[in-house]
């Protein structure tokens, strides 16, 4: 456990060594990355057992909390690392990518692990910047005009965001004199000016919300996912957004458990769900449809996070994990389906398996029982229903309306997929590239879903246990044991 920093160090080191290794032998570079990721994955999985009873804090180089760099490892963090590594391993095209992309990917992984494990806002900020830079490089990979334009836009939003986040961090440091999360968690609400706290939180989510696709910072999403390769889109929508989400979860749980913060999140989430789903409704392009739908789904996650207490975190984590499983699989489909919807007519007759799996995945996304998506949505709705006030009532209504809109556009797509093609002269039979790997990965996602819906009680219990650990502020403080009171 003490070597947990390897999760950050090894990929970063690998990223710098990779170009040199590629000069020695190309095969070395090609196989190096997946093997490295696999090694890390196998090394991380057994660690889960060690944090089951309680989280572990690690001071890098034995420098204690406020001065040294501290890592905080709980079940949620480890699970996210495992999922990050596993999803990357599964969807990364080993044989198609160039060396510099592999390097960028490793930087992305290393910095994401850094964000997940850091127990210090400033470190999180540094890793977040690193992650942003790596993602710019990955997104622009196709080098088309659209890719450049989209990336530029993404770069502008992202860098303005990070500057604002830095301002927020400065504000916190100015008010409290520390940036360690455990230190900050010890602050009572009377210890610092509420207005300042809210301002700091706003600035922070303006920065970190960019990658978590928080409204209105998600403006870059449709263009970037449309222009980047679908595997990058899968990685960003599926996993990287959840990494950014973890930052916001930590902020809300540890630093800002205030009603104003929940209210702010709720307002943004309601707008996010509405805008995302409504925009998806008019979308006539498969990739963009997925991008908009992804924003709507993350809106639901933020809506859950806006519910105070553990119930909110539980719903948010459940929704996020569910989304993490499904969205990458759907984006993989975009590799061959990524085009205008009307061109997908009659695909059922050539690729029945993929269409069937697609339907299963979207059924879970819509929350049809007994699939896991239903239980995640149930957690959200029962959490919202227990709140008083018009904002919660509005959120309930918005969830309901958004689901109807979602069902309408997703099943309109299904209708197009199974529609017979008219046999006219200019209508050539539809032959889309057929990737076997995609089929296998889709089946894997569907299999996990079905298995989970059969064991929903066990899954739910485990999830609850994870969230209990992550949602417990006192536990965080007790584990890190900071010595100096700010």
């Amino acid at each position, binding site marked *: 456990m003490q070597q947990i920093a390897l999760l950050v160090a090894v990929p970063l080191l690998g990223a710098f060594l990779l170009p040199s290794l590629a000069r020695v032998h190309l095969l070395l570079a090609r196989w190096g990355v997946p093997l490295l990721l696999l090694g890390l994955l196998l090394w991380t999985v057994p660690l889960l057992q060690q944090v089951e009873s309680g989280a572990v804090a690690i001071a890098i180089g034995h420098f204690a909390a406020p001065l040294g760099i501290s890592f905080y490892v709980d079940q949620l963090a480890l699970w996210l690392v495992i999922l990050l590594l596993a999803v990357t391993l599964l969807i990364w095209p080993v044989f198609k990518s160039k060396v510099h992309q592999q390097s960028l990917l490793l930087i992305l992984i290393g910095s994401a692990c850094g964000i997940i494990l850091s127990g210090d806002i400033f470190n999180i900020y540094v890793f977040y910047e690193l992650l942003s830079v790596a993602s710019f490089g990955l997104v622009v990979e196709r080098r088309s005009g659209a890719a450049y334009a989209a990336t530029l836009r993404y770069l502008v939003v992202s860098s303005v965001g990070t500057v604002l986040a830095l301002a927020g961090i400065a504000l916190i440091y100015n008010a409290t004199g520390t940036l360690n999360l455990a230190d900050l968690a010890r602050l009572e609400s009377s210890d610092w000016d509420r207005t300042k706290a809210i301002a700091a939180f706003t600035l922070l989510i303006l920065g970190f919300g960019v990658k978590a696709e928080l409204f209105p910072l998600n403006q870059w999403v449709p263009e970037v996912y449309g222009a980047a390769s679908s595997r990058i889109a899968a990685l960003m929508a599926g996993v990287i957004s959840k990494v950014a989400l973890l930052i916001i979860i930590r902020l809300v749980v540890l630093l800002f458990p205030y009603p104003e913060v929940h209210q702010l999140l709720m307002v943004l989430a309601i707008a996010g769900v509405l805008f995302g789903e409504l925009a998806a409704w008019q979308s006539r392009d498969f990739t963009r449809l997925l991008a908009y739908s992804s924003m709507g789904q993350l809106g639901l996650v933020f809506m859950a996070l806006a519910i105070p207490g553990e119930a909110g975190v539980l719903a948010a984590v459940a929704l996020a994990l569910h989304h993490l499983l499904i969205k990458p699989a759907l984006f993989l489909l975009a590799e061959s389906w990524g085009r205008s919807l009307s061109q997908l007519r009659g695909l059922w007759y050539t690729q029945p398996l993929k269409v069937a799996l697609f339907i299963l995945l979207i059924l879970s996304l819509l929350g049809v029982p007994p699939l896991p998506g239903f239980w995640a949505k*149930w957690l959200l709705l029962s959490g919202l229903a227990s709140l008083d006030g018009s904002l919660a009532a509005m959120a309930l209504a918005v969830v309901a309306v958004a689901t109807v809109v979602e069902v309408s556009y997703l099943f309109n797509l299904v209708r197009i997929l199974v529609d*017979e093609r008219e046999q006219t002269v200019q209508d050539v039979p539809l032959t889309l590239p057929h990737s076997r790997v995609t089929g296998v990965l889709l089946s894997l996602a569907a299999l996990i879903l079905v298995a989970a819906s059969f064991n929903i009680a066990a899954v739910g219990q485990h999830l609850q246990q994870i969230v209990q650990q992550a949602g417990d502020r006192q536990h965080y403080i007790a584990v890190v044991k900071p010595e100096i009171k700010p």
Partner: protein
Amino acid sequence: MMVLDQLIIIALLTLLPAAVAGRTRTGAWVATGFYALQLYLLIQMAGVGSGYMVASSVMPIVVWQQTIELQMSAIGWFFAVITVGSALAASCFASGSWGEHYRQRGNSLGAFHTALALNVAAMLLLLSAADILMLFIGWELVSWAGFLLMFLGGRAAREAALHYLTYAIAGAMAIFVAVALIYSHVGQFGFEAVLSSVTRWSLAQQLVVIGLLGFGFLIKMGIMPFHLWQAAAYAEAPGPGAAFLGAISARMGLFALMVMVVQVVSLTPLIKTELVTGLFSLRDGLLWMAALTIILPTYTALKQNDARWLLAWHGIGQGGYMLLGILLADSMGSAGGILHIFNYATYQLLLFLAVTAVVFRAGTANLNQLGGLVTRMPLSFLAMLVGIIGLAGIPPMNGFVSKWLIYRSLITEGMPLLFVATVIGTLGTILSVYKLIHNTFLGQLRAEHHEIREVPISMWLPMMLLAAVVFITGFMPGLALEWVAGVQVAVGLKPITYTLGGVETINGSLNMIFVVSVLFFGFGVGALLFYSGNRSHRVNQLDNYAGGHFLTSETRYHYSADFYAGLMHLIGGWYRGSFLWFERGVVMTLSLFSNGAALFYRSIHPSLYLLATAVLVLYMVV
């Protein structure tokens, strides 16, 4: 293992032969056998049906520290018998030649049988719900299974199914929200816990929950103004599937309404809320919604030229009678409403199967292109005849009994205007069912239909059995009224006093055995006169002449197109399509908002928003 467990397991097991071998004749017959087995198990549970016991499952499912149990009371049993019986008839009908024909036209017969089995299993789960969570899960499963069955038709069917799905999910989400609200107040799922807690709520809370639940349930029932999806979705489904959906699917809404609103929340808040003080309560509003649902869709049915669409529109109208009866909530009216569910299911199934038989042989359900089939398909004619007498509510068929109970209750409860409304609806029904049987079976046989034969036994047998049920429960309504009284006890209404021949109360009595005997005595006298006369001479319908010319089958001497031209001249102007117009308006508003949202994401200066927010925040700090 309890009988209920066996029933659920068998219902789930039916999926196996249906999915694996449904495309073959054997597989289809095995699935049909499974429905027969389910019906047998239900008959074993007959004690549940009379309302004096409850069947429980011994396989509790634990989720989120809550135990979900299955439990079937009299109301669930009543609906379950109709469901399984309808599935048995539809599956039997589809297992023989119809299936072969369906498959030869390039459809997937296996998918059809799977969808049917899925519908039945989902409905049984819903019907044995003992808590709100299971009720919702069952509800969603029923909605999606129904969608699958509708989706299997052609392009028009898929369009209609999508239309249905949007409505169904809107309803389901309203119910989901209501379930979440109830759970957040009660902390438990069980009906009993909800029942004991709900009485302590404020009127506003009760109304919110009733409103959300009612919205969802009324959509499923197709009560106006939420009825637009239903006709197309049911009519365009594959023949026996349409029969099954038409007979029972929409009634799931009524089941849920009776369980959740009548039994759990009770109708009191609706009666207490007065829209016009002392004159017009919320319940009266709902009663008028039901009455309008009887009238308008029935007259829409009158205009249809496709037999399937005509029946489907009638299905919506008939749902109005049931809701009307149940909302009356006195023992006679609610008995009428509940009995109408059963009666309607039997004759609607019969009618849809008869129409499907005609489509099977003649290739079309277009009422302008049929006629004279009575000589070629006498059994199907008999089936349709029995069915339309039932649908029109004329003795001696069962439809008369339930309608009589509702009329009687409307009069004794002092609602003469509603009574007039239902009579107007019945008039429309009689007119349009006459059009149905006339344009299909009577009149001139078309040249292209000369070679048509009667349908095979796998198709006419279920029709004849259903016709027998329609007649027998009309002759001896007491058989079905026993179950109805059980349902009334289960949902906490006052049970009706019934006899084998009908009802006997101080508010009025009906003895169908007597009525039918008199009727048949009249028929007997007529037959006596007929057969005591000279021998009749049977001639071919073309053995005739007009204007000095002999007729051939190429000469049309009898037209059925534009059937009620005179009537339409009078009332045609009333058909405005206002609901369609309204629906289009909603969709256009949505697309306006949708384009607005997309515009937001297309705008060029995203960072402006960030800066604006930043300035705002900095202003707050300084």
